[in-house]
């Protein structure tokens, strides 16, 4: 029952409630009003909604990954980023709040929410310079061992805020001028890489005092001719990037400076000028070593955010396309990492999340449409854990 009928109770005697309601109480067991409990171990799908029409009120729609039935919502403020680290039970949000909703003073925070019941746990103040951008997974990343959280800043000068998770405070703000995006080392908790406009990849080692210098790699890509998307996925210790021109760059950021491991020319020799497109155009099933890419035909300069017509499966070891399938007009894609893999795509036109079931490991590539559900007003990132 909780506090349910307070209003009715309080106001009954002052003619605020009609007489019939005052007579209403009879011998019946009133229903208790409580909260839904999330079943432990539920695989969750997270649709990040930019909500551009109401940009101060972004949110994460949380769904059951199997059925896409709603579980709840987490508010993410103004152009907030979110992270759902595998192995963690928490959800991290880096965002901004304005003191008067759409105006007034800006305050930035890393916020921690429980992945078990979606409740707010705590907030860590950070400097007010984080990139207020569309949801790109590379703008907010945890380090190896969850020692740090890294937040990409832009004023528009770029730098990276370092949050110490044990101390629960910001310990540094390291410039990465001309560079953007955070790609942490898998083994070294103090190390991350960043993509630079001159085609190099910078590596930054965070010192205990929160400072650090960027060490450039050799030139790895050409931002004019074949720009790399900043939405990347891990494959083992590597980071896997799609490029505007239809290639996959496999980059090793574990060392002192970053190295190009492989460049797979996915679309080469295929008729129709197919290219990757969208905001999250590639995902990798780590165990199988298969990348899935959102591809559109007749690609041109400027088509790099076009929704997909097909999803391609690329075997990263064999370095070849192993399958193609029709797709909803998707602008974002992720894959779960279990033994029964499924793809989750953002239908950019319907603003829906679509689940495609994938064949078991070793079977031929095919997509089986399973379920679809609203992903919010303008979802631009999808994650699963």
């Amino acid at each position: 029952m909780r506090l349910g009928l307070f209003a009715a109770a309080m106001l009954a005697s002052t003619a605020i409630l009609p007489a019939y309601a005052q007579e209403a109480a009879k011998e019946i067991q009133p229903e208790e009003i409580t909260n839904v409990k999330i079943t432990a171990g539920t695989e969750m799908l997270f649709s990040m909604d930019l909500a551009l029409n109401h940009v101060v009120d972004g949110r994460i729609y949380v769904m059951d990954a199997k059925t896409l039935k709603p579980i709840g919502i987490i508010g993410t403020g103004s152009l907030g980023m979110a992270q759902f680290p595998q192995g963690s039970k928490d959800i991290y949000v880096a965002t901004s709040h304005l003191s008067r909703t759409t105006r007034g003073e800006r305050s930035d925070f890393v916020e921690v929410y429980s992945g078990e019941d979606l409740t707010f746990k705590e907030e860590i103040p950070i400097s007010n310079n984080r990139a207020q951008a569309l949801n790109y997974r590379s703008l907010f990343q945890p380090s190896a061992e969850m020692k740090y959280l890294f937040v990409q800043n832009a004023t528009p000068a770029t730098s990276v805020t370092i949050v110490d998770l044990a101390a629960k405070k910001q310990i540094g703000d390291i410039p990465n001028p001309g560079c953007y995006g955070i790609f942490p080392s898998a083994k070294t908790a103090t190390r991350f890489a960043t993509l630079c406009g001159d085609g190099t990849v910078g590596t930054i080692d965070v010192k205990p005092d929160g400072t650090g210098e960027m060490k450039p790699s050799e030139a790895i890509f050409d931002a004019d001719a074949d720009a790399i998307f900043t939405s990347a996925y891990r494959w083992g210790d590597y980071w896997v990037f799609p490029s505007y021109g239809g290639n996959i760059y496999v980059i090793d950021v574990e060392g002192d400076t970053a190295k190009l491991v492989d460049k797979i020319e996915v679309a080469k020799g295929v008729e129709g000028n197919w290219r990757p497109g969208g905001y999250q155009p590639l995902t990798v099933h780590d165990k199988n070593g298969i990348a899935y890419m959102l591809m559109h035909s007749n690609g041109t300069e400027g088509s790099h955010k076009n929704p997909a017509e097909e999803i391609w499966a690329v075997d990263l070891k064999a370095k070849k396309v192993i399958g193609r399938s029709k797709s909803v007009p998707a602008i974002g894609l992720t894959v779960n990492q279990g033994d029964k893999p499924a793809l989750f795509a953002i239908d950019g036109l319907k603003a829906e999340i679509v689940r495609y079931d994938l064949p078991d490991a070793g079977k031929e590539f095919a997509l089986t449409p399973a379920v679809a559900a609203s992903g919010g007003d303008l979802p631009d990132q999808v994650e699963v854990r």
Partner: protein
Amino acid sequence: MSKLIDKLFGAIDHVTERGSRQMAHRLGRRTFLSFVGKVAVGGAIMPLLPFDRDGGGTARAAAEKTDQECEYWRYCALDGFLCTCCGGTINQCPPNAQVSAVTWVGTCQNPGDGKEYLISYNDCCGVASCGKCLCNFNLRERPGYRMGVHNDINWCMANTQSNYHCTVAAVVGLGNSNG
């Protein structure tokens, strides 16, 4: 029962502060409680409500509406987002939303048994507005001068987390609208 009342009053004093405390004082504690006592603690051992909570069985067969549809019988005076579309159930808020401390009520007829029930419409609070299944029925709804049956206001008003998220519809008694 005294524990329930203590809990209720404690919460009221805490959440609505001056206004409701004054009001309770003005009306007298006994008057204040007369209605709540009957509804909240009457017939405490009845094991089950006489209808199916998910709208299945008899009730559903008669009404042909699920609790994710505006026309479901309990929603006869509900204005808001159905929590059943937002991760909640007919009488449970989504996992992270506070149950509202105060509510408005409706008296709705269950087509399954033809009886009228008193429905407590609790808002769920403190989370961004759900945005799904917006419904608006107004049977016996009145303006704010009959606040207990008014539905054009945020009933999260008395919660520490006051943002409106969605609305549940719990059966809390038998009703009698006299037609």
